[in-house]
Structures are given as C-alpha cells and as structure tokens.
C-alpha cells in the first residue's frame, strides 16, 4: 500500500552514477537544472533529453521506476500546461468562453512540461542512485564553508538524516494504523471532502502520538550518549573526489556550455 511510494527512494546498485561522490551528484544536478532554464530551441531540448536518457541508462535504474516517480506530480504538470495554453497570447485555435487557447500557448506549455519532466527525472535519478545518508553527508560537506556565517551545517544535516530515517518508519506505522482502523470499519476512501477529512482523525491522532513518542525516545537516547553536534567529530567514511567525479563534472559543464552557446547564439566552432 503506502510503502510502495518511490519518490526519493534509493535503488541499490554499483553503477558509475552510484559510485560518484554525493557532492558531485548534488552539484551536477544543480548545474543540470540551471541548464534546463537556458534551453529554448528544440535542439537544446533534444540535448537535455539525450543527456537525461544517457544518465538513466548509465544508472541501471529501470526506466519504469524513473517514470513512476513522475506520477505524484502529473497533476502539477497538467495545471502548468493548461495555464500556458490558455494564458499565452497569439493565434487562437480554440475558444472556451473568455478563455482562448493559442498555438503559441500549446508550444510553450509543451516545453514547460518537458522542463518539469527533466527536472523531476534528474532529481529522482539523484535520489535513486544516492542513499539518503550519503546524500545528507554530501549536503553537510557542501554547506560546511557557510558555517563561518553562522549556518549550523551539521545540525541541519543531522535533522535531515533523522527526518529521512523516519520516513519509512512513519509510512509503515501509517500503514499499520490504517489497517487496524479499517479492520474496525473505518473508511478512508469514500465520502465528500469534509467527511474524508473527519475520517482521517482515527489515523492522524495515533500517528502524531507515535511520532512525538519516537522523537522523545530518540532525544533521550542521543542525550544518554552525550551527543553534542559537529564539534571535533571524526567520520567513519570520508568523502573523496575521484577521477570519475572529474569526468562527471566535465560532462555537465560541457552540457551547460553548449546550452548557453545555443541560447546566446555563440558559434560552437
């Protein structure tokens, strides 16, 4: 049931992408996203698609799984497309009362949808190939330079690790409480929105109680072990850049350069 959610779920493997340093993958994803916003021409979109497809093939993650991560967001994509179709001025192809769909709008909407799909596909590729713990480790290291500005990098990373760690636990708990209440005749799927919201009470109250209980127990357990943040802590696994990280950086930077060249019409040769 609920435990089948895939967004942000690690897909174990040992591909090139899996073995990259998490910092490389984080920065690479950010650069790719920047590249998406530089893309305008069909050629640029083709390049982005090719790059994303290459990444997916390289990761060894089944395409079906990557596509499934788009599912929770299809509604947002649809809304975006509709807004563009009906709000862009240009050649009218269809009129619905005061709303007019335009040729330019369809084009704009399609490109926007493609951007969103690339964005989601690439960021889920990041989480498919990087375990949450490694990912937060990478984030902490990337944020480290900002510590001097008073940014509690370690504490932020710690909070993220804990939050990520407890998502599966809470999902499991939700699943179990849902089943238990369903076995007592609770109904979570029918009725209007008010009724449905009220029907969630037997699920939410126990879930909150259990989340607070777990938080409390974890805090006590950490204090009992004299946990005190990032000062002078050593790591079991040090992050180190390797040659493959250089290769990956070169690839995304090249992509960014070409996209920039396409946008500002810089001759490529």
């Amino acid at each position, binding site marked *: 049931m609920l435990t089948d959610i895939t967004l942000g779920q690690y897909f174990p493997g040992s591909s090139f992408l899996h073995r990259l340093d998490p910092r490389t993958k984080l920065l690479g994803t950010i650069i790719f996203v920047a590249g998406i916003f530089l893309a305008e021409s069909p050629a640029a979109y083709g390049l982005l698609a090719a790059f994303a497809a290459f990444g997916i093939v390289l990761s060894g993650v089944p395409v079906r799984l990557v596509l499934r991560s788009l599912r929770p967001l299809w509604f947002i994509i649809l809304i975006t497309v509709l807004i563009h179709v009906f709000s862009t001025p240009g050649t009218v192809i269809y009129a619905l009362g005061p709303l007019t769909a335009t040729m330019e709008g369809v084009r704009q909407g399609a490109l926007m949808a493609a951007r969103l799909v690339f964005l989601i596909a690439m960021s889920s590729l990041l989480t498919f190939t990087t375990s949450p713990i490694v990912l937060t480790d990478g984030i902490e290291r990337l944020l480290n330079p900002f510590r001097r500005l008073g940014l509690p990098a370690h504490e932020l990373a710690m909070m993220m690790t804990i939050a990520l760690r407890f998502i599966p636990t809470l999902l499991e*708990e939700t699943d179990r*409480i849902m089943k238990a209440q369903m*076995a*007592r005749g609770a109904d979570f799927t029918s009725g209007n929105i008010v009724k449905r919201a009220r029907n969630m009470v037997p699920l939410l109250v*126990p879930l909150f109680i259990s989340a607070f209980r777990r938080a409390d127990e974890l805090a006590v357990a950490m204090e009992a072990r004299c946990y005190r943040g990032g000062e002078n802590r050593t790591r079991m696994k040090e992050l180190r850049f390797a040659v493959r990280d250089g290769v990956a950086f070169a690839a995304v930077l090249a992509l960014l350069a070409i996209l920039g060249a396409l946008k500002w019409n810089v001759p490529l040769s």
Partner: protein
Amino acid sequence: MSIVLKDVSYVYMPGTPYERAAVRDVSLTVAPGEFVGIIGHTGSGKSTLVQHMNGLLRPTKGVVEVDGVNLAAKGEAARLARRKVGMVFQYPEHQLFEETVFDDVAFGPRNLGLDGDAVEERVRMALDFVGLDFAAFAKRSPFRLSGGQMRRVAIAGVVALRPAYLILDEPSAGLDPRGRDEIFAEVSRLHAATGTAVVLISHNMEEVARLVGRLVVMHDGAVSLDGPPREVFRRREALQAAGVDVPGVTALLGRLAARGLDVDDTALTVAEAATAIAAAVRRRGVC
C-alpha cells in the same frame, strides 16, 4: 463455513530490488470455534499471512474465502465477510485515538451503523471481556491508562465488533508476566464463552501450547507443521529447522527421554510433566 486460504502467496514490493516473498503457497483452513496458534521465527510470514484473513492484504496469488465468500470480490458480500474477521495488531494500543475509553471502543460498533443503545451494550460487553470495569473506565481518557490497560481497551475495540473469527498478533508483546497471563486468560474466556474462533500469533510457547487446540508452525513463508500441540512438539527436528523452541518442560522431558528414561515426553505443562516423570520413575522402581 470457515476461513479458507488456498495456495496463497504474497510478494512485497514486486519488481524492485527489495522484492521479497513473505508467504509461499500456503493453504490453511480455520474452522468456526477453533483455537489456532501460529508460531514461527521473526520474518517467517505469520503477520503477513493473517492479514490476508480479513482482506487487509490481497494475495499476489491464490484465494482467500471467509464462509464461502471470496474476499477479493467487489460488493456487499465481500465487505460483510471481511467484517466477520476481527484483527488485533501488534501493539494495538498505538491505534487508540478517542477522548474517552467508551468512544474508542464504540468506534467499531458505530461504523457498523448500530444505534446508541446497541453500541453501549457492545461496549459494556467488550470491556467486561477484557476485565475492565465499565463504570470506572468508560469516561476516562485512554491515554491516561497503564500500558496493559491501554492494550485491553484496544482489544475491546475489536471484540466489540463481535467477530466470528478473532485474530490476535502477539497480544502479549511487551507486557509483564502478569499482564500477559491476564490477556491470555481473557482471550480463552472469550473463546469458551462465545465460541469465537481465535487465531493467536505468539512467541510464548508455554501459553500457546496450553491454550490452543491446534498449532501451525510457519517457516520461511510456508507452513512447516500443523496439528495438535502435542504432536507438533514431538517433531523436534522440524521445529529446530523453523527456529522455534519447544516449551521448557517439553524440552526437559525430551532430554530425559534421550538419556534413557522411559518417560512420556508429550507433556505441555509443569503439572503434566511432574506426573509423567513420577510415573516414569515409579516404572523404573527406583523409589
């Protein structure tokens, strides 16, 4: 008229690297009024199996029928059939949510569409079965009770549905020995008084052996042994393979028998074991 599982298999997260078959080709029948114990090592598929019995999980393969109705079918008949099977999960006290004990126990009966008087009658009956005094507890908050009392309120919430079959998943987990004894006593009283069929998952071999009429041993998603406790506990090698302990006294008698004492090694309780040993010693003519 019974719960019938035919060749039921269940696979968690099919198509991912986390894919895992939790139940493999299990066929099992629970007759009305039966008291069945299910034992097995952690991860042997006990909990997954019993969740099929009231349709909370749909088998990946196979059929589950309750009183002749296929639970996977759509419509009223299947819904009513699922209602005949009450399910008490592990740590059921985690599902409490109402402001008063009365309202929490009444949640199920109200969902059945009963009116006020009928609901109150059900709540009284259910609290009585779990040994909580209606007058003293009905108006209290379930969150201000002791762990053992909370668990009983939660069990009462399922008993109030008056299921024909009651499934309990580790009802004694995390309770002290006294709380454990009380819960088991209440369950067997319910079984005796109402004829409700009970399926009990437990790690507590002594209790299970004493209470149930039939014992099912699960190993690696399949049923490895199924029969009266005395016969099941005689199959020591199969039990060992399943990672299940026999009750302490039965194990002791087994060791005595292995050392050459001609003793009846099927006793399940301390009293029975004492009688068996006394008889064996008398036969030997030592004292």
